[in-house]
């Protein structure tokens, strides 16, 4: 066993750190504390996201794990995790997770050569931004019950229905859409994946505000939207299998743990420089215990994330689903704990949001709200617990009709 990074990985890590350290100095105030709201709430925030995407593309880092065939670098999984980790630490934008982490792998797995040639390069070059058209008002956890239809008529498909919680639909040019091509079908049968231009007639985006008033997600309505048949990805009616593959690309969580570490460092700094009731906050037993617990969470979580990468690299897929679920669950609940603990340590200041007096620029009261999104999206934490119980522990599975 050897936990050291290789020389090569070490150098890569330094390159990533140098890059983000310098580029994040260009973040506009509107980018705030980053995250989904930093990227999507304001135009300036999104502009910074696209700027960073361009910079990352120049380095080839948007496609680092892709096969050379598609202009990638075939970097190892370990290298990708190191990248995620460093980027998570800086809370840096520029990787459109929908395009890079979800749709590109879908394309590689199921698209025609023509589609790959047409759709992959703009993603690789940081020029195409996507949103994810999966969830519907009545199909959340139970995604397979979705009812938006896409009916073939001549050389196109006609889409009717509604998506919701669509992050960034107000900024993205494209959506990858999961819709029912066979209206008589049920559940996972008869679903198909599409590449959709958001400027097509009949697509309507209605903002939904997050609880803190920020514009992150939207409702998207389809009224007789015509998608050219060439934008069906893969085989008609086989979209569920393709989508389930994409789900597995939702990541190891390495970025979440390094993000927590950075906030921990900032909190320690804050606690050392703040005196209350004649005592440095860093000497307060409550604060010390809380921050020690967050450190432990970030440490053990990082080990899990690295183990996931290792299993991936070795092609040991048996334990992967369980470990990935565990990591998603653990990292999002760690963020929740961090946000609560940090705002407690701050005392009255913990309630400040975008306020000049807010410690850490209000990042923690922000996180107190944004962390709830993370325990819900990408498979709710209850669904992750189900998976761990069913797949990981082999407990009897609940039967759904």
């Amino acid at each position, binding site marked *: 066993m050897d936990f050291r990074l290789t020389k090569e990985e070490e150098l890569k890590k330094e390159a990533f750190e140098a890059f983000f350290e310098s580029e994040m100095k260009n973040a506009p105030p509107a980018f705030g504390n980053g995250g989904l709201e930093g990227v999507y709430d304001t135009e300036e925030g999104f502009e910074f996201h696209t700027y960073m995407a361009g910079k990352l593309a120049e380095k080839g880092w948007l496609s680092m794990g892709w096969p050379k065939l598609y202009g990638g670098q075939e970097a190892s999984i370990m290298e990708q995790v190191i990248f995620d980790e460093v980027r998570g630490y800086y809370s840096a934008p520029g990787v459109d997770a929908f395009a890079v982490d979800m749709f590109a792998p879908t394309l590689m797995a199921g698209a025609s050569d023509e589609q790959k040639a047409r759709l992959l390069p703009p993603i690789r070059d940081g020029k195409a931004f996507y949103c994810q058209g999966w*969830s519907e008002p*009545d199909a*959340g*956890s*139970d995604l397979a*019950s979705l009812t938006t239809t896409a009916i073939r008529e001549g050389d196109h498909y006609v889409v009717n229905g509604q998506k*919701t*919680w669509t992050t960034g639909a107000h900024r993205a040019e494209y959506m990858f859409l999961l819709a029912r091509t066979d209206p008589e079908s049920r559940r996972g049968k008869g679903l198909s994946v599409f590449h959709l231009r958001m400027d097509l007639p009949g697509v309507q985006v209605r903002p*939904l*505000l*997050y*609880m*803190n*008033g920020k514009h992150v*997600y939207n409702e998207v309505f389809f009224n007789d939207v015509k998608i050219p048949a060439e934008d069906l990805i893969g085989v008609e009616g086989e979209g569920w299998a393709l989508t389930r593959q994409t789900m597995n690309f939702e990541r190891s969580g390495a970025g979440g743990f390094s993000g927590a570490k950075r906030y921990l460092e900032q909190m320690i700094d804050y606690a050392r420089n703040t*005196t*209350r*009731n*004649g005592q440095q906050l860093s000497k*307060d037993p*409550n604060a010390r215990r809380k921050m020690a617990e967050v450190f432990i969470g970030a440490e053990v979580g990082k080990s899990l994330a690295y183990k996931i990468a290792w299993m991936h690299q070795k092609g040991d897929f048996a334990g992967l689903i369980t470990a990935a679920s565990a990591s998603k669950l653990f990292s999002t609940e760690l963020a*929740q704990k961090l946000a*609560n603990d940090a*705002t*407690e340590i*701050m*005392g*009255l*200041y*913990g*309630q*400040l*949001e*975008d*306020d000049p*007096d*807010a410690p850490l620029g*209000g990042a923690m*009261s922000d996180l*107190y*709200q944004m962390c*709830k*999104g993370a*325990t*819900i*999206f990408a498979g*709710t*934490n*209850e669904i992750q*617990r*189900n998976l761990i119980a069913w797949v990981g522990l082999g407990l009897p599975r*609940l039967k*759904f*009709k």
Partner: protein
Amino acid sequence: MDLDFNKEQDMLRKSVAEFLAKECPFDTVREIEDSAEGFNKKMWKKMAKLGWMEIHFPEAYGGLGDPFVEMTIIMEEMGKKAFPSPFFSTVILCGLVLLEGGSDKQKKAFLPKIAAGKKIMALAQYEKEASYLEAGIQLSAQSEGADYILNGKKMFVPNANIADEIIVAARTIQGVTLFLVDAKTPGVSIQKMQTIGKDNNCVVTFDNVNVPGDAMVGEPGAGWHILEQMAPKATVAKCAEMLGGCEESIAMTTAYAKERVQYSTPIGGFQAIQHYMADMRVAYDTSIYYLHKVVWMLDEGMDATKEVSALKAQVNEQYKFITERAVQIHGGIGTTREFNIGLFYRRAKAFEYILGDTAYHHDKLADALGM
């Protein structure tokens, strides 16, 4: 023993609930939160007409002299509706300070006006260090002839932006001393802070503010004692508001869990969800009955130092726990500004700080327990 509310109290609860349901639906709550004033004057006047503000004031000052439990009933109902108003800062914080420490003349001058909805008041206690303790009060009040000159900065002052009068905890050579300051006095400047509760917290700066000596509430140096006298009742009132929020959060979540179907099953049918909800219910039940006991003790004039701190620490944690689970059970819709559960989730964090966070009350409790 009698563990029930009496008939009048049930009626009061009903009338507050009905008024708020009609006048301040959740959409109006959001509108008020988003407005610069953070306050609806019309509603305030109507509330005054209904007589909510005078209930606990003594008859000698135009009040009804009813026990404090009635104030907690009002606060609980306000909590259920996430009702934003200066009721707590005006009637409870400042009303109780005046009751505990004000001169007969001050009570005559202010309490009837508060009762009539004609005065909005704010209590300025905390400063830059954000200490809950006596030593945290450093704003200087220098005597000059019969007057005092105030210099310094107060933070986290609820509703100062709409207040007519601010009760300021300042430091004279005799110690912490309270002053009633007209918010329009030259040298007073007020700025709203951006808080998770969207609840009109303000920074109030005093720059050579001249205050006449008769604006002092209580004796010089008696300020901390008066604040300590006020705190138990006010803390319990805040807990009542928080528990109203807990009750509503559980009710909303229960209804949603019955109605929301995924995998052809109401999500409330999943045992994972049932166990969350059972825990939420336990958290509530173990808090609400304790609230009743503690407010009864205060109305009986008993010492409830331990109990008040135990209650606030308990409610701080349970309100956060209940609202966090409530959002989780709602899924995506729980995270929106449009849907109502988020109002409670944000308030749970905001109210945690009011009149002492959990760490403060744990400490106080440990002291009271002789540690």
